[in-house]
């Protein structure tokens, strides 16, 4: 039988996906312990610090699990839709990126677990970690750049060979995602390489704190869209195929992605609303820009449900909501991402609260925020990625999903949702009551307010334990997928509905969109940055 997916590329994809799930497992162990500690149910042995665990959890989940899965997924789709195999140069860049990122990850985990970098995944200066921690981060970022260049290379060649043709939607979206990543990571790379590495090695004796935080958050917000956009690729391009329907509109899908590219970067101040050193006008300006991403989000919601309804009606569904009934609820490749979509509704609403300028004071640095991103990244994005794994691993390894694994997948999805309800729900509530995030077990000297938080922390611990069962189950499923029966699985790429309009070509004029993105960034950041360069600097501290 002819393989439906290039086997050599399959190895590259699989290497990324397996690394991602290994990170999920290790990060999940840390997460479980965090929940149990905060719930007052266990005390860590003296040689393991809570903040060491929390650093490992943040880095492994937010940076490693996500980035590896995303790069693996994007390479798979780019290989499949741009010619059926990667060019040698693209494949080589993919492997080089993988090795550089992995060297960084291994080094980083060793430094974190040896207690030399308990600075959390945001590594705010002037807390000064071992220089090797920053070197590790730099390697991860540089590795991801190389991987990104591989995708650009494949795309450029394809376009050169298909002049005048519209690129495949998947490839277009992959390029937007990685372009945004390249532009955004310049901030954190500058912070790490120019500020933190020389300072932690002792070559310079102080660091500009406000500037370092600003560079971090210039990267930190687009980071969340870097997680989300690949999930959107699955929703826009893959899900229509899986439900047996059509993509609602190619043009609107591309427009939504371009809007994400423009509005997800010049907005980092919404993470710095509560801090000094940034003027109120500039904070508000970036709040306005932040809110602009709501428009493509609303467009995405519309497209998804339009796809579902059109598909249902084409299959003869009657009544206002009859189309819901014909969706393939028993197919994990649909069900897991669909639950992710549903969760994104409250998750997105919570995000609007967080970004609301002065209203941020109610939630800033409380467990509400932790509850929020366990809905966005750890549920909407993670469940979508899990849903992808059930067809991606079989596709790239030449196997098929079995009914038993499909059923286990449905169970895994439900376990995850229940666990998250019990963990994230109480986090939101107790956060509104004031309980801080990133804080080991404490009752603040039995202060009555803090005592009232404890029942919620216990619920969080129970939810976290259920979630951990979900982690074990997905890891089991991934291993089982690797041993599934041989066969060929077709890469699910949706087609555009006949009624949809032709896509305007200007959506692929990169110079225009990059130009506008850069202009918006300069507009939002230049004057505040000039101010910051004149700011004071601080020596470093090791407080753990």
């Amino acid at each position, binding site marked *: 039988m002819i393989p439906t997916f290039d086997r050599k590329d399959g190895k590259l994809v699989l290497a990324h996906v397996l690394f991602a799930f290994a990170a999920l497992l290790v990060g999940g162990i840390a997460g479980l312990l965090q929940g149990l500690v905060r719930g007052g149910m266990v005390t860590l042995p003296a040689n393991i610090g809570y903040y060491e665990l929390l650093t490992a959890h943040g880095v492994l989940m937010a940076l490693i699990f996500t980035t590896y899965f995303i790069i693996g997924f994007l390479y798979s789709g780019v290989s499949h839709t741009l010619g059926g195999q990667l060019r040698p140069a693209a494949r080589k860049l993919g492997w080089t990126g993988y090795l550089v990122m992995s060297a960084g990850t291994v080094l980083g985990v060793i430094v974190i677990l040896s207690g030399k970098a308990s600075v959390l995944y945001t590594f*705010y200066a*002037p807390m000064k970690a071992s220089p090797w921690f920053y070197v590790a981060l730099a390697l991860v970022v540089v590795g991801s750049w190389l991987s990104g260049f591989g995708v650009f290379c494949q795309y450029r060649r394809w376009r050169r060979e298909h002049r005048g043709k519209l690129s495949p939607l998947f490839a277009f979206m992959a390029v937007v995602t990685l372009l945004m990543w390249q532009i955004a990571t310049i901030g954190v790379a500058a912070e790490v390489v120019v500020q933190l590495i020389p300072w932690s090695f002792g070559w310079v004796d102080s660091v500009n704190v406000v500037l370092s935080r600003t560079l971090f958050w210039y990267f930190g917000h687009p980071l969340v869209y870097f997680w989300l956009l690949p999930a959107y690729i699955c929703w826009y391009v893959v899900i229509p195929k899986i439900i047996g329907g059509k993509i609602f509109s190619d043009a609107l899908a591309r427009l939504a992605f371009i809007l994400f590219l423009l509005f997800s970067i010049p907005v980092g101040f919404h993470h710095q609303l509560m801090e000094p050193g940034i003027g109120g006008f500039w904070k508000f300006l970036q709040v306005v820009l932040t809110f602009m991403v709501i428009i493509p989000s609303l467009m995405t919601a519309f497209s998804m449900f339009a796809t579902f309804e059109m598909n249902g009606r084409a299959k003869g569904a009657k009544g206002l909501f009859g189309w819901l009934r014909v969706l393939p609820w028993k197919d994990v490749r649909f069900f897991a991402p669909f639950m992710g979509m549903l969760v994104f509704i409250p998750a997105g609403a919570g995000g609007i609260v967080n970004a609301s300028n002065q209203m941020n004071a109610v939630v800033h*640095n409380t467990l509400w925020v932790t509850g929020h991103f366990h809905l966005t990244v750890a549920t909407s994005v993670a469940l979508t990625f899990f849903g992808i794994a059930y067809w991606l691993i079989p596709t790239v390894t030449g196997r098929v999903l079995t009914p038993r694994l499909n059923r286990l997948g449905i169970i895994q999805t439900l376990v995850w949702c229940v666990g998250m309800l019990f963990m994230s729900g109480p986090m939101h509530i107790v956060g509104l009551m004031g309980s801080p*995030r990133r804080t080991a077990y404490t009752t603040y000297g039995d202060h009555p307010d803090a005592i009232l938080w404890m029942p919620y922390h216990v619920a969080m611990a129970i939810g976290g334990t259920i979630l951990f069962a979900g982690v074990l189950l997905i890891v089991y499923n991934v291993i089982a997928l690797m041993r599934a029966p041989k066969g060929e699985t077709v890469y699910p790429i949706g087609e555009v509905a006949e009624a949809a309009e032709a896509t305007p070509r200007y959506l692929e004029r990169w110079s225009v969109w990059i130009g506008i993105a850069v202009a918006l960034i300069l507009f939002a950041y230049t004057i505040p940055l000039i101010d910051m360069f004149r700011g004071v600097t601080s020596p470093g501290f090791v407080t753990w």
Partner: protein
Amino acid sequence: MHLHRLEKTWLGIGITMLALFLAILGTMAFSMGMAPPSEHHHTVDPRKVAETAPFDRPGITQVGDKHYEAVMVAYAFGYEPEKLEVPAGSKIDFTMTSSDVVHGFEIVGTNINLMVLPGEVSHISHTFDQPGEYLILCNEYCGTGHEYMKTTIVVK
């Protein structure tokens, strides 16, 4: 680009709500004094906090009728001064900085929540109408003792 009629309605409602919401936030921030904290930008040399006024004498002083000024220094892992006390109905203007790493300053049960950065001076004001012992805690991770970093304000 052509939009479906229903999508136009959907986006129209969404964008109108967005504009309205931003207008409310903006009006509150710029003409009703409900802006995020630290409007004014002041700096201090983080190596010389203990020698620089007003941080050389952390404490609370009365500046008017039921109006106080609290000068505070956050450090790993506590706040100076350790105890604050005011009569109910008092307004306190807080001025603070950090003598080491980044800290948080959250007064539980109020909307006071801000970051304290070395080298920067943070400002915020609050009127304490209800008597009680308010918990102040650090909500930004600052090191091993972070979960012990707290103080209280007694409002009588």
